[in-house]
């Protein structure tokens, strides 16, 4: 009889595992085709794919990416398109998870696309990038910053408009020690691809300072993402009382952690990495909690100063009455701009020619600055900034002020 209940438990748990798969809204919606111009005849358009997380955990990012890419496509089309042809964006939903990412990639590949924009989240992008690469499709990532995507194995057809995790980590080390003058540093990640990568690199770049005795790491551990109550780690941080608390994961956890920390009386400087400061973060945590917290980021949409940025933001605002919610979505638009420039330079959509053009182009202008890529597909010269939330809960530039 006792055995029966153990077996029952095992079977029930395995069934329970099954529902995780089904209960999430991860089924990719049928590929939607959005034409950027009113009536393009198929032969006259250049089709570019966009793989984005329209559902799942990163659904907000996916929606913003879609909107940004569509606005960028409109702008390109208003100026005469690419090689005299209109751009048409073909969208596939990757459901914010690696499994559906591969499905989405296959969907776009099977439609004969030669250039795609894909995708948000490093672990989501990796399987898709492999498929695109194997099928000779040029793919440009916009929200994937894991170092290994470009540095582990060479994918000749993979590029990204976003920086790498270690760009940010290097910036953090310098910023924390030289600007904030922090002696005792806490680093917290979420045990996932992205957050752990940033945390490990931060540790690596802090090492020279530690060797010189200028600072020490007093806490290095992970939280479990998706939970609601982080009081246990908050109590720990309170006990350790570091000068700087660097959190390297996503905004849903950051908002809860910071809120619970401030309620528990933790007063240390909170530094968030580049996926923390979003409108959702502000909404969940509230002004009282976020004020004074510092966040590292690529230039934020509202602080971009290039002429291309001005034009893009105006067009975006005219259509959606707000600015893009995150820089990643703007990088998606720049992925389209980079592809457009490369196709223009190559004179065709042939993937080999386009990939070559991506590596060699020097004069392509993007919303976030010049679009140039290294041999391995990384973007050259990504600027980095620290921003702070002021008393009204609005972001201000903190460092470097040029």
């Amino acid at each position, binding site marked *: 009889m006792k055995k029966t209940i*153990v077996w029952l*438990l095992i079977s029930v748990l395995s069934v329970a595992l099954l529902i995780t798969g089904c209960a999430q809204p991860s089924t990719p919606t049928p590929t939607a085709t959005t034409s950027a111009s009113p009536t393009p005849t198929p032969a006259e358009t250049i089709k570019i794919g966009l793989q984005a997380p329209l559902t799942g955990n990163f659904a907000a990012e996916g929606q913003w990416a879609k909107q940004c890419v569509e606005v960028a496509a409109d702008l390109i089309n208003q100026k005469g398109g690419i090689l005299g042809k209109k751009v048409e964006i073909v969208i596939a939903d990757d459901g914010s998870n690696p499994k559906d990412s591969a499905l989405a990639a296959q969907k776009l590949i099977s439609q004969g696309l030669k250039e795609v924009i894909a995708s948000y989240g490093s672990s989501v992008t990796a399987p898709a990038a492999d498929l695109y690469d194997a099928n000779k499709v040029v793919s440009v990532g916009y929200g994937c910053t894991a170092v290994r995507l470009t540095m582990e194995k060479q994918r000749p057809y993979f590029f990204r408009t976003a920086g790498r995790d270690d760009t940010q980590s290097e910036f953090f080390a310098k910023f924390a020690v030289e600007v904030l003058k922090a002696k005792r540093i806490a680093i917290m990640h979420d045990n996932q691809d992205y957050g752990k990568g940033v945390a490990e690199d931060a540790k690596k770049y802090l090492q020279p300072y530690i060797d010189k005795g200028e600072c020490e790491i007093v806490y290095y551990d992970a*939280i479990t993402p998706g939970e*609601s109550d982080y009081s*246990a780690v908050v109590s720990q941080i309170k006990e350790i009382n570091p000068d700087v608390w660097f959190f390297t994961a996503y905004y849903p956890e950051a908002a809860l952690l910071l809120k619970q920390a401030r309620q528990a009386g933790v007063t240390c400087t909170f530094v968030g990495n580049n996926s923390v400061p979003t409108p959702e973060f502000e909404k*969940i945590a509230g002004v009282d909690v976020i004020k004074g917290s510092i966040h590292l980021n690529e230039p934020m949409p509202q602080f971009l100063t290039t002429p291309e940025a001005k034009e893009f933001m105006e067009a975006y605002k005219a259509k959606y009455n707000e600015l893009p919610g995150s820089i990643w979505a703007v990088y998606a638009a720049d992925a389209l701009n980079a592809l457009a420039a490369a196709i223009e330079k190559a004179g065709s959509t042939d993937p080999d020619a386009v990939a070559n053009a991506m590596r060699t182009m020097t004069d392509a202008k993007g919303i976030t600055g010049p679009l140039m890529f290294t041999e391995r597909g990384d973007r050259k010269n990504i600027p980095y900034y620290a921003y702070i939330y002021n008393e009204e809960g609005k972001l201000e530039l903190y460092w470097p002020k040029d």
Partner: protein
Amino acid sequence: MRIFLEQFLNGLTIGSFYALVALGYSMVYGVMKLINFAHGDLFALGSYLGYTVLVIGAGWITQVLGVWGGVAVALTAAMLGIGIAGLVVERIAYRPVYKAGRLPLVVSALGMSIFISNGIMAIWGPRFQAYPPDAIPSAILSFGDIKITVIKLVTLIVSLGLMALIYWMVEKTLFGAAVRATALDRDTATLMGIDFRKIILFVFFVGPALGAMAGVFAGLNYGRIIFNLGWTYGLKAFTATILGGIGNIPGAMIGGLLLGVMESLFEGFVSGAWKSVFVFLVLIAILIVRPTGLIGEKVAEKV
């Protein structure tokens, strides 16, 4: 000692959420021998119901009745609403297949779970929703160095109080005796004149209502809700149910509180990254030594 006390308190709060949800699993299992997979999602639905009441009523409920009045209204509405939803689920998803045996019931429960969580997504959207800040009591109490939000304290007290009430009801009253008799042997209990239908209505109303209360409290404490909230809590609560001994009411409470405290202490003193590994290792170890859970022996005879 202070830090231990603080972590223990943290654990109790998390544990009281698990325990409240676990009670629902356990009550239904005890009477119907059914794992009600939809229970976690009813919990999430309760959280959204409370959210909706607070968002729609933030203008006047909070103004007229004060912040705590608003909380009380949201709690009552969610508990009533989800209690009724529990009855509806029983009527449309379980009663028709009850005679078909246990597997169809489990599948029906899974279907209900997916239906509810996707329904939440369709109505409220896939993105995080935030409880309106001005509807959440924001006071913080300080005991020396330990700071605790009032809402956290209220959560703890109300849920422990409610658990005690349910315990008293089931263990000490005549109606509770009927519930226990039904759990032990339904046929004999029916022969003794116990109305089986009444007992089922009771567990399918009270279980989800407790879940809804936990849901609203989760929203008030953490401010952030999402459609698959029921999954995260459901799995932990289910674990707590097994840990304590399924079908056993004090077992569900003890299992929930123990799970919360274990999580909190391990995360606080050893490592957050290894928390789940540790907690589930303990669960497996306990099940090897006591396959029926910490205090669940009656069920083993029955199954």
